């Protein structure tokens, strides 16, 4: 390799470095031609001193990982305030998404709301309309659970055809965190729901308000407010100090900076549940209240941003699978565009409404591959192909594209987003 560690983070740098040291990295089992100076020479880090414990009271990723960041697709929206960016899922592993690179979607920008300025109101069809401070919320019995949040528009740009070259862009409107907070059942019981209260209208403190109506049955079943994610306070962009968690349902319902919950006897039919987040079919009529996120999976690597950079032989094919209907029970992988499939290995048994990591250990001999993954969930739902989805919904849909994704891996290891027959 090289003594310049900065070069190792980019593909170009890596390839140049590999070329410079000849065949040393081509195959794991190959005999070394010359002794590796990284081993035979005393390196600076093995002799000098590193940083002290007060260098970074809150640490950031090491600089070599500087390209593992959220990215924006500029042409998608009019500006960056009401917009979205994408989680670098291509470069992550495991299932938990660090908050700092978990995708953001704001409708009026991420706001700075201090805990002491925070109030949560419960009103409407309740026995006692209530106001909670942040400190009040911390005194309720607490729960912790891990859930994925997927934007309904994830893969939306891929409806009409293959568009964006990278799993970050095709599937990166998703994250998976461990949330700590209080169930809505606990909070709503405190106010006392009147019998006719069968909907819950939720809204945020930001200018967009992002109001949404949730059936009371779902609210009482498994929804919660969260003030911690992955063990620490929510980041500003994820709704600090309090956001809503709606397991398995589209991300737009997970209201950030949650300020009010109103018990009602009918949905409000807000902007976000009529003009947006509705699915237009081929005949021009539109599905509404399509809250559940269908089962979906994607191979995160290899993929266009993660070309195969090593030689022939062992290759780890890996990806993510999830279902808003329940737990992932299996993932199949195809290397021939869906002619034949084999079972992938799940890193851990699937959890309800949370991401599952899968691995497919493969012996690659430099052949072209058409890589696909296909998830099955605990209800027996099998992830459909794009053709199957389009047959039902046509080409004008935007949201809820959960179709099988194809990466064309070429003989040189590079990959491209394609569609196949």
């Amino acid at each position, binding site marked *: 390799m090289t003594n310049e560690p900065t070069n190792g983070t*980019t*593909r*170009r740098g890596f390839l140049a470095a590999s070329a410079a040291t000849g065949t040393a990295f081509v195959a794991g089992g190959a005999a070394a031609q010359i002794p590796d100076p990284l081993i035979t020479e005393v390196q600076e880090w093995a002799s000098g001193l590193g940083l002290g414990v007060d260098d970074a009271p809150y640490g950031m990723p090491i*600089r070599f990982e500087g*390209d593992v960041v959220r*990215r*924006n697709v500029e042409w998608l929206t*009019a500006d*960056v*305030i009401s917009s979205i960016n994408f989680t670098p899922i291509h470069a992550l592993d495991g299932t938990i998404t660090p908050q700092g690179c978990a995708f953001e979607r704001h409708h*009026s920008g991420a706001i700075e709301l201090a805990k002491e300025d925070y109030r949560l109101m419960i009103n*409407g069809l309740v026995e*006692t*309309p*209530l*106001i909670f*401070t942040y400190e*009040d919320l911390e*005194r309720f019995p607490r729960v912790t659970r891990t859930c994925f949040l997927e934007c309904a528009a994830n893969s939306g740009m891929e409806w009409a*055809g293959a568009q*964006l070259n*990278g799993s970050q862009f095709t599937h990166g409107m998703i994250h998976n965190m461990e949330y700590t907070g209080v169930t809505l059942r606990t909070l709503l019981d*405190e106010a006392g729901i009147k019998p006719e209260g069968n909907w819950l209208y939720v*809204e945020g403190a930001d*200018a*967009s*308000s992002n109001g949404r109506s949730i059936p009371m049955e779902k609210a009482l079943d498994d929804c919660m407010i969260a003030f911690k994610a992955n063990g620490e306070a929510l980041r500003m962009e994820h709704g600090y100090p309090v956001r809503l968690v709606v397991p398995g349902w589209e991300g737009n319902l997970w209201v950030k900076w949650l300020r009010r919950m109103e018990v009602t006897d*009918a949905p*409000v*039919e*807000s902007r976000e549940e*009529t*003009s947006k987040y*509705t699915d237009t079919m081929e*005949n*021009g*009529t*539109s*599905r*509404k*209240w*399509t809250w*559940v996120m269908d089962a979906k999976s994607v191979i995160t690597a290899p993929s*266009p941003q993660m070309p195969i950079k090593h030689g022939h032989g062992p290759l780890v094919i890996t990806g993510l699978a999830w279902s808003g209907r329940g737990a992932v029970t299996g993932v199949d992988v195809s290397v021939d*565009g*869906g*002619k*034949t*499939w084999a079972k992938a290995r799940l890193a851990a048994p699937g959890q309800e409404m949370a991401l599952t990591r899968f691995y497919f250990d493969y012996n690659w001999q430099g052949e072209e591959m058409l890589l696909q993954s296909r998830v099955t969930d605990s209800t*027996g*739902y*099998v992830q*459909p192909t794009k053709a*199957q989805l389009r047959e*039902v919904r046509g080409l*004008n849909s935007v949201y809820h594209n959960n179709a099988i994704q194809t990466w*064309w891996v070429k003989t040189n290891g590079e990959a491209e*987003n394609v*569609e196949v*027959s």
Partner: protein
Amino acid sequence: MSKFLNLALAASLLATPAMADKLGLGRAALPEEVAAWDKDVRPDGKGLPVGSGDALVGEEIFADQCASCHGDFAEGIDNWPKLAGGMNTLDRKDPLKTVGSYWPHVSTVWDYVNRSMPFGAAQTLAPDDVYAIVAYILYSNDLIEDDFVLSHENLADFELPNAGGFFLDDRETTEYPQFSAPACMENCKESVEITMHATVLDVTPNDLTDDAPVEEAEAPAQAPAPEPVVEATVDPALIAAGEKVFKKCAACHQVGEGAKHRVGPTLNGMINRTAGTVDGFKYSDSMLEAGAGGMIWDDATLHAYLEKPRDVVPKTKMSFAGLKKSEDRDAVIAYLASFGE
């Protein structure tokens, strides 16, 4: 919250024992508080405040408050939402979804304009203004005459063309049975051909074989912004703080090398320039008058304008609530001053 309320709360908690299944946390919401936040409006008109307005009045307010993004005729500028047109396009390729062609309820328009618009100055419109703006949007969609008075009494009865165009999620019956058949494992299809390549469209940000992302990520530590013309006396930390504040402006304004007019004009070299004089930008009449009257963007004027734009230029197109903090204004002015022509 006032101390008085805290005391009242403490007293009521002590006086009222918690019910068996309740923890007694929080306090009762006051009617004024509920009224301040409970603003949502439903299709049946529940939640609408008393008021009215027509498209003639609405046109003026719209031009003032909305047109900089949505266009004078609600046709939408750049990527900003189009609010009018698109009738009978929902079953065609790339349907145009507007209030007229797609939205099912007028109440939703009222609710959203009232709660969340104008962008950057939400909750500043009076109810009559909202009725007038909604009337103008309906008028722009050829759904009412310009003298039709929209009010809390008739809004709920007004039916939009696509009101019947929605149906409840039916995936359980139309998709689930089909997509829950046992998965095929072998000989699933005869042949596989690539039918489409993403690279043909070439719309992915950043060349993936490029080093750009790394440079991008490391850039802040080394060199912020393109070659600022920094005056020796200006504190770099203030400019850096201004760059952050400017994010609030960046939805509409560009500055620096390659800046283009967006919703607002480019801001290169703006300090001490006469107001309303950048080539190629369509200013409000109000701003042109101010410039003709000799208004210069000096420090004091900018401070006043950035604090409350409409106090300085009454009918400016800039629908921005203003920067309340003096230090934010100082910072953003320092930042802007770092860009020459």
